[in-house]
């Protein structure tokens, strides 16, 4: 079978201790932290928290089409709804609470000005298909955002519409495929990606019919040029390279990587997830990139919202620009307009459409406010402080933890492996769970796959030195505890979170994906 080394325990081991912090309450409540039932389980669930006028009976035209069976939806008054959701919110960790060191996610502060701007009715209360003459301000904002993205990246064109980074990768690959087909090179069916690539890279390539071949990595964490060269050929459509890469390192040979790729007739897709390390200082266009998605929810601070929404505009080179998906934004003497259909005059060679409307306007507004606030000088400072913060953390931890690539600086994130935990009985997973007890969200774990027990730490530029020091002290203390043999602290962690370690095995073996009205026995661990 194909072995992979990412299997790890997915349910709590029988804890040696019961983990209680001593005092048992009478109701199970724990101070500010309350157990909150599902809305379906609350008593008196058939209220409504919205006042609406009475409605007439539906017209006879709809006879036979009406929903005459119960839907099964609970309803709450406003005070009850507020309590329910506020109590739930208290069980979440968030950037607003502490340093959130998730490598490759860029968990920077979400400015509240951006939220205020996004809610101006002139942006939030306009319909994508109302006459274009009535939304010139919105189109102008999109045009200005496009200008900032193109200028920051040194690229001539941008497709704004992808709804997330992975969607942007899809957009880039579809543009590349269209370019090859237009040039009679549709036989190129292979995409090369490094072993360290984020899962979305091969998933996207395979989704649109490419075969994915891996490029080896050198001992110092970069793309192996010789291996790349040997794998390039007439059958290769594109390479997908992240720069800075997923190990947090700048690909020194990126210009040569681009040259080799172009010489072989292929395109260079750059995964821009780590743009925060170089924004305002280095332009991917100067490196030979043909297409790059930019995660507005990473580099440009739009909120992560518990998992989305994101936005992933894609900057494109001259060669790929003609194939960008609709809508195309046009600026002429009459003002701004969008060409919305591929094949139409003005977008003849567009490869198609990524989604029904124009993209994530709500995120454009937020990102644009962020750009205006920082300016060219602020954005350059963002990259420098992000890189400084990551290197500071690496410097202050390298004597107690093992950096995966100790020589030379990292970029905006520092990668450690689990060599330093050897012999302690503590795994990367256990260490991460113990961090929760100390008040920090764990760093990215077990990614990238090329490093054993990977721990990827990205502080971002919005952390103060005080918070960085607090974080470093916590990790140093935990590292010391691990090496001193305090395994119980780690194996039973977390002890202080709203819940203890959860049984993911059970959730996968006996999937229960919704609440059901029939009385069901609670799930029990096997």
């Amino acid at each position, binding site marked *: *079978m*194909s*072995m992979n080394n990412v*299997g790890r*325990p*997915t349910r709590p081991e029988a804890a040696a201790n019961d983990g209680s912090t001593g005092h048992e309450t009478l109701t199970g409540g724990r101070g500010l932290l309350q157990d909150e039932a599902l809305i379906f389980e609350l008593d008196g669930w058939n209220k409504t928290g919205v006042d609406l006028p009475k409605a007439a009976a539906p017209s006879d035209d709809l006879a036979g089409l009406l929903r005459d069976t119960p839907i099964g939806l609970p309803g709450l008054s406003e005070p009850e709804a507020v309590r329910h959701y506020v109590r739930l919110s208290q069980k979440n960790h968030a950037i607003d609470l502490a340093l959130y060191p998730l490598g490759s996610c860029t968990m920077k502060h979400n400015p509240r000005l951006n939220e205020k701007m996004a809610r101006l009715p002139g942006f939030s209360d306009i319909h994508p298909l109302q006459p274009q003459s009535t939304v010139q301000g919105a189109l102008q904002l999109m045009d200005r955002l496009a200008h900032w993205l193109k200028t920051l990246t040194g690229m001539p064109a941008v497709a704004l519409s992808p709804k997330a980074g992975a969607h942007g990768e899809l957009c880039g690959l579809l543009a590349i495929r269209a370019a090859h087909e237009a040039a009679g090179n549709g036989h190129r069916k292979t995409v090369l990606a490094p072993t360290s690539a984020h899962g979305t890279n091969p998933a996207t390539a395979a989704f649109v019919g490419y075969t994915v071949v891996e490029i080896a990595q050198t001992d110092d964490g970069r793309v192996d040029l010789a291996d790349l060269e040997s794998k390039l050929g007439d059958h290769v459509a594109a390479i997908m390279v992240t720069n800075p890469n997923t190990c947090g390192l700048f690909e020194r040979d990126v210009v040569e990587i681009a040259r080799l790729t172009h010489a072989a007739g292929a395109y260079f897709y750059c995964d821009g997830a780590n743009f925060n390390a170089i924004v305002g200082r280095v332009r991917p266009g100067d490196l030979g990139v043909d297409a790059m998605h930019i995660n507005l929810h990473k580099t440009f601070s739009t909120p992560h919202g518990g998992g989305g929404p994101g936005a992933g505009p894609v900057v494109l080179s001259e060669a790929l620009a003609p194939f960008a998906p609709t809508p195309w934004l046009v600026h002429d003497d009459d003002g701004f307009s969008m060409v919305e259909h591929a094949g139409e005059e003005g977008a003849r060679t567009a490869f198609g459409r990524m989604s029904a409307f124009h993209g994530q306007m709500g995120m454009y507004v937020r990102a644009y406010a962020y750009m205006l606030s920082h300016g060219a000088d602020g954005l350059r400072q963002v990259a420098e402080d992000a890189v400084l913060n990551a290197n500071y953390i690496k410097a202050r931890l390298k004597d107690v933890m093992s950096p995966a690539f100790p020589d030379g600086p990292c970029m905006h994130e520092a990668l450690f492996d689990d060599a330093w935990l050897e012999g302690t009985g503590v795994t990367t997973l256990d260490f991460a769970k113990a961090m929760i007890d100390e008040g920090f969200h764990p760093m990215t774990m077990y990614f990238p796959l090329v490093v054993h027990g990977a721990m990827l730490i990205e502080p971002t530029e919005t952390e103060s030195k005080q918070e960085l020091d607090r974080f470093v002290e916590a990790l140093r203390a935990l590292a010391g505890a691990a090496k001193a043999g305090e395994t119980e602290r780690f194996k039973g962690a977390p002890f202080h979170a709203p819940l203890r370690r959860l049984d993911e*095995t059970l959730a*996968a*073996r006996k999937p229960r994906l919704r609440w059901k009205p029939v009385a069901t026995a609670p799930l029990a661990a096997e």
Partner: protein
Amino acid sequence: MRFTKDHEWVIVQGDVATVGISAYAAEQLGDVVFVEVPEVGKTVKQGENLAVVESVKAASDVYAPVSGEVVEGNAELGDAPETVNALPESGGWFAKIKLSNPAEVDALMDRDAYEAFLATL
């Protein structure tokens, strides 16, 4: 019982081989949560994809250790995938294959050879 370098095992009775993954492989995988057993009638060549085994965090392809036609898939694994963890080299078998080339089995490692191989990993 014979083993492949990819950690599959084979036991032959007559011209039918029972196939599974080794205890080592099961341990590496962690808690098995789902197994996609092959359909009856599927023909496989040695080394081709036979089945998929999933834990929470990983999905692994299981390769056919021998060539032939699948005559039975282990239906129990649908409700009880944990059998692969509990009894990897007996009750956790994946499929029975009618051999098309019995000589292939002779070239596989016996248990001592497999254990020695594991020591090198």
